[in-house]
């Protein structure tokens, strides 16, 4: 007595006779791949937009011997002599409104230098002042900024990130193109594999379709039963594949988080806590991942509807 009398109300208790579980496995593998690609593409986009966008507005200014008085200033000015760092800061205040100027504190400097100098706070090395300038959106630093600062406080170095930002932007764009291409390819392959697996599963069940037809089942009924079954299998498979892909994805994003940061203050060699990780993941990527199982289910469902109806049309 292998099977009981199922007594199912909804139809014909066909689940035993419908396309088998190989579809489930195939769709799971395809979704795994698609999820990874989707994330890779999103990650590439996030990194490249932050780099390319952030770098153009970002200047780093180094002032050597920051605590020395400005040369020449003490002769005319009888009040407390201005330090070289303060002088640069004063000049920078003339930059367009919305510009953020931040002199790194001793701790921030120390943290930046720790990998190279060890405990920098205790070294006797004379450290320059590092001033980070973030221009407002749409503004670029005046071309003569470096000369102006150099004339006022000699030995001031302005690192123009904008120069390599154009190269970064080019790199980012090609990276994006690659990611889009990969996404389109994997999406296309996944669609085809799902459709082919559905087809293969159905062709072994063709006799069943004919039997049901002979017993007086309508086309829409037969197509519907098979489509819901394959749609369900594809949904389950894609859900599994996507969930399995989440583990490497989270790991990857956690490692990438420090590089995605765009300001020096935020730069930290530490990886974010697991709990805060979901906030770092781009919303559209999460939406894409969530949509994946439903897309797979739809492909399975639609392929089945189409194929079963085409077969049935050949019979009167």
């Amino acid at each position, binding site marked *: *007595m*292998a099977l009981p*009398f199922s007594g199912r109300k909804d139809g014909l208790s066909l689940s035993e*006779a419908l396309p088998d579980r190989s579809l489930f496995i195939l769709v799971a593998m395809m979704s795994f791949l698609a999820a990874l690609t989707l994330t890779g593409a999103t990650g590439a986009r996030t990194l490249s937009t932050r780099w390319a966008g952030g770098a153009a507005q970002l200047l780093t200014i180094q002032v050597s011997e920051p605590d020395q008085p400005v040369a020449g200033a003490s002769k005319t000015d009888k009040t407390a002599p201005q330090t070289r760092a303060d002088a640069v800061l004063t000049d920078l205040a003339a930059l367009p409104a919305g510009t953020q100027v931040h002199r790194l504190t001793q701790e921030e400097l120390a943290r930046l230098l720790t990998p190279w100098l060890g405990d920098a706070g205790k070294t006797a090395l004379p450290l320059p002042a590092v001033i980070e300038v973030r221009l407002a959106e749409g503004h670029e630093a005046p071309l003569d900024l470096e000369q102006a600062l150099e004339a006022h406080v000699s030995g001031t170095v302005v690192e123009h990130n904008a120069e390599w930002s154009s190269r970064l932007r080019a790199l980012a764009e090609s990276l994006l193109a690659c990611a889009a291409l990969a996404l389109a390819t994997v999406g296309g392959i996944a669609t085809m594999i799902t459709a082919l697996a559905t087809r293969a599963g159905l062709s072994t069940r063709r006799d*069943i379709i004919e039997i049901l037809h*002979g017993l*007086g089942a309508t086309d829409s009924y037969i197509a519907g039963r098979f489509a819901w079954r394959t749609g369900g299998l594809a949904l389950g498979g894609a859900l599994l594949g996507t969930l399995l892909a989440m583990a490497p994805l989270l790991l990857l994003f956690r490692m990438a988080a420090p590089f995605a940061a765009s300001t020096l203050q935020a730069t930290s060699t530490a990886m974010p806590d697991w709990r805060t990780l979901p906030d770092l993941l781009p919303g559209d990527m999460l939406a894409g991942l969530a949509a994946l199982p439903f897309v797979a289910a739809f492909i399975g469902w639609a392929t089945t509807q189409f194929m079963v109806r085409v077969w049935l049309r050949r019979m009167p």
Partner: protein
Amino acid sequence: MIRMNGVSWRRERKEGTPALSNLSFEVPQGGFRWLLGPSGAGKTSLLSLLHVENLPTDGTLCLLDKDVTTQTPRALLVRLRQRIGMVHQDFRLMPDLSVADNVALPLRLQHRPEDEITDEVHAILKWVGLGDRIGVRASRLSGGEQQRTAIARAIVHRPGLILADEPTNALEEPQAHKLLDLFGELSSMGTTVIVATHNEALIRRLPRPALMLERGRLVQDGT
């Protein structure tokens, strides 16, 4: 009832002589006809037309008061098929379904209440001697058991027309006689029955008019 007038049927994409040519005959409602003829004569082909699995290439066919042509709406053909019980020569069971689920198919397609289905299915399976095989997968059945399951599925929904293609070739004599008696009884109660067979002994047991086919032509039209 069945009325065929000059019906020919050609397989798809097959040229030459049609599988069936120029068939004309009539069977009144409640009539019983043997369908005879040598192997390859076209008995299964004729039954496929009567089961609306295939449509006539030429001529007119009227089944259960409905005209069957290539113009007939699909929905009507579907309803017609539901009113016909067919025992295929090769049984055509769903291998992965249990005996009971196979037999329940015609009733479920008509959306009968499930408790009614259970009763009907158990009764008919008991009658064909499969009362103790109800939950067995159809693929695990012997040939005779498969044939009896197919017979049960063909009659469980009380069709107006029963078509049986060699329905006793896998049965032992007592079972075959029991089935034949049932067919005779159903016919006298108003069901039209067509039975294709090679079995002379069977024909002697229930002497009824015969449709005789030879190479796709009707040489005896049952009158």
